[in-house]
């Protein structure tokens, strides 16, 4: 007879969730309604991307970075391009930098819209998800106009961007930016300040600043705990040091600082800031080159470099060791969701099952990044 601990019920919230953030398996041990432990099992989506990087050349790896975090594809492209450019020591023309910032921030908005939507549908309010998707269609149209694809863009390349902005992009983008803040207000009225929603999320799963730093939590989750750390301000890349935007931090408006509501609200605030950034960038656009002159056969000098960028979900880092040939020797990807997920077992002690869903949704993880 197996020695089963009869007080606790061990259940597997298996790889297939209806309210899914990917294929994640959680082994949950409950004592009636209250959890005592939750352990994540990952690896269902492992595609050996880091190994693939050792057999393709540098420009060939760009489409693979799209598929790391497919909702924030431009940002992942950007981090990889910046890594190789640092090793090559090339300078990007100004117009290319501005276009990169525009694309990265628009992608931040669309990624946060999905995070917001799927979180609200986990909580039981199904409408904001569809509203988020509707807004996202405008952004997708903008991207499709520019690079031809709606999800995996492969647009930000080593040396600049692959194509210049098409005609009509600036007008269409300005139209979207005028329309969007009204929608944010609507989301706040519909969901963010809804009493039931606040009741579900306030004071749940508080991440203290010390814990956040210990576990390596980054992105909106870190800022919600009160620590003002944003790579766009701390280590500015591209032209972020010329732009005027705020870094929202969690203030514990509806409960303690760092609870699930704060993490959710961070994303709404960041969407507002991103619209501000894109508006400034659209005004700063001047004619110029959209890419630097990059040799067809890229052979970066031997060396190692680590570059990080501020993804919508946290800090994405690429550690690249080059041995002077056309293919990387080793490419290690530091995925933000991996570190964010590591704090889940600590947060899940002593909460109810319904809260576990809230915790996963508020951490905003995405599995392709974790499993690579």
């Amino acid at each position: 007879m197996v020695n089963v601990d009869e007080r606790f019920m061990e259940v597997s919230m298996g790889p297939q969730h209806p309210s899914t953030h990917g294929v994640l398996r959680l082994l949950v041990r409950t004592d009636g309604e209250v959890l005592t432990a939750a352990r994540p099992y990952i690896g269902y989506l492992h595609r050996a991307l880091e190994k693939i990087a050792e057999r393709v050349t540098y420009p060939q790896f760009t489409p693979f970075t799209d598929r790391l975090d497919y909702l924030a594809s431009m940002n992942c492209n950007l981090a990889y391009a910046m890594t190789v450019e640092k090793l090559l020591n090339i300078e990007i023309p100004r117009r290319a930098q501005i276009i990169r910032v525009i694309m990265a921030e628009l992608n931040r908005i669309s990624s946060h819209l999905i995070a917001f939507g799927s979180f609200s549908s986990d909580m039981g309010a199904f409408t904001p998800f569809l509203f988020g998707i509707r807004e996202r269609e405008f952004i997708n149209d903008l991207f499709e106009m520019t690079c031809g694809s709606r999800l995996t863009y492969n647009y930000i390349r080593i040396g600049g961007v692959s194509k210049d902005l098409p005609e009509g992009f600036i007008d269409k983008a300005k139209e979207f930016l005028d329309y969007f803040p009204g929608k944010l207000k609507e989301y706040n009225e519909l969901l963010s300040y809804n009493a039931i929603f606040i009741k579900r999320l306030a004071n749940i799963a508080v991440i203290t600043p010390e814990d956040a730093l210990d576990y390596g939590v980054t992105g909106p989750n870190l800022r919600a705990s009160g620590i003002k750390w944003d790579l766009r301000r701390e280590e500015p890349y591209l032209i972020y040091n010329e732009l005027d935007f705020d870094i929202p931090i969690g203030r514990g408006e509806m409960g303690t600082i760092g609870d699930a509501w704060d993490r959710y609200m961070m994303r709404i605030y960041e969407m507002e800031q991103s619209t501000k950034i894109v508006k400034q960038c659209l005004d700063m656009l001047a004619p110029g080159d959209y890419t630097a002159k990059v040799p067809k056969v890229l052979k970066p000098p031997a060396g190692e470099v680590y570059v990080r960028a501020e993804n919508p979900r946290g800090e994405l880092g690429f550690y690249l060791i080059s041995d002077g040939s056309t293919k990387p020797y080793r490419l290690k990807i530091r995925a933000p969701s991996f570190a964010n997920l590591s704090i889940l077992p600590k947060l899940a002690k002593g909460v109810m099952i319904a809260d576990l869903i809230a915790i996963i949704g508020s951490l905003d993880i995405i599995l392709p990044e974790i499993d690579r």
Partner: protein
Amino acid sequence: MTELINEIITRLANAAPIIRLLVVIAIIIVSSVIVLAVALLYEGLATYAERKVAGDIQARIGPNRVGPYGLLQFVADGVKLLLKEDIIPFYADKWLFIIAPYIVFTASFAAFVPLSYSEHIYIANLNVGVLYILAISSVVSMAILMGAWGSNNKWSLFGGMRAVAQIVSYEIPTVLSLLAAIIIPASLNMRDIIAYQSGGLGIFRWLIFNNPFTFFAFFIYFIASIAEVNRTPFDIPEAESEIVAGYHTEYTGMRFAFFFMAEYGDMFVVSALATTLFLGGWQIPFIGNIVMPVWLKDILEVAVFFGKVFLLIYIMMWIRWTLPRLRVDQLMELCWKYLTPFAFFNLIGASVWVLLLHGKGVYDIITGLFVH
């Protein structure tokens, strides 16, 4: 209908007993089939309406491919569910598993009996109509627990127990708020209650306008009844369960359809009860004493009754697609700390009003001032 049946029975007073038995059985079967057909048609259309309303609220179109405007969607769904494989888990308690959906459906369908749709169209004139409906609806909670236990699934049992706790707790505000309205006509007979609300331009003698306590009682009753039928924001048995499992997770095909349809049937019954008691039943507003043939008046009354009921059902659907879900303990807190005390004090206030003013409502007092 009762008069028709009485007539048939008196005509048969002289026939042989066996013929009388057969005729009685035939009457029972025919009337059950008629009521079942109407109930099933309503429930099918209710699923279609829910999807259409959901589509409207979510800025999209609901089903519109199957049949004109998608009206035959419920037929397609029914055929699909009938054709699904009927799976009974190996270790399930067969008897309980099979019987549970039938009992749920029967209970929900049996509550259609005391409702009266117009002055001459009703199925049975029960002297204790309101009590009968409340009693039969409670059978649903027992049958849910049977289904949950019979599934031999830990999560189903969880969901089932929560469902029972929810339904049983919310019966108290339901009954208390109904009582605040029943003490005025002082009868449990549905037809008498509607007859009490006649006159006054067809709208001002509704019990909801009778005194401020019944006004609040209506809202308390409405909220508690949403919890009785397991709709969002109180749908933890059926949907949170979509995150984990649920009391109807092991049911496939038509068995699942029974649970599903019973929910819509319950919605109808509960809304019909609210209409009868608070909104005047089939009283046509603003019609005065216009002379019209009986059949026309009946049709109009049926239309008005269904209009009011469907308005309440629309509000239930509207609430479902707007609000997120409550957690179990918050749901219980809402019931015991907010609704029950309110309903209780409401009842006391209503009783004091009836005692002091001898059952006269606000409208009666105002017209009383002008009449002398």
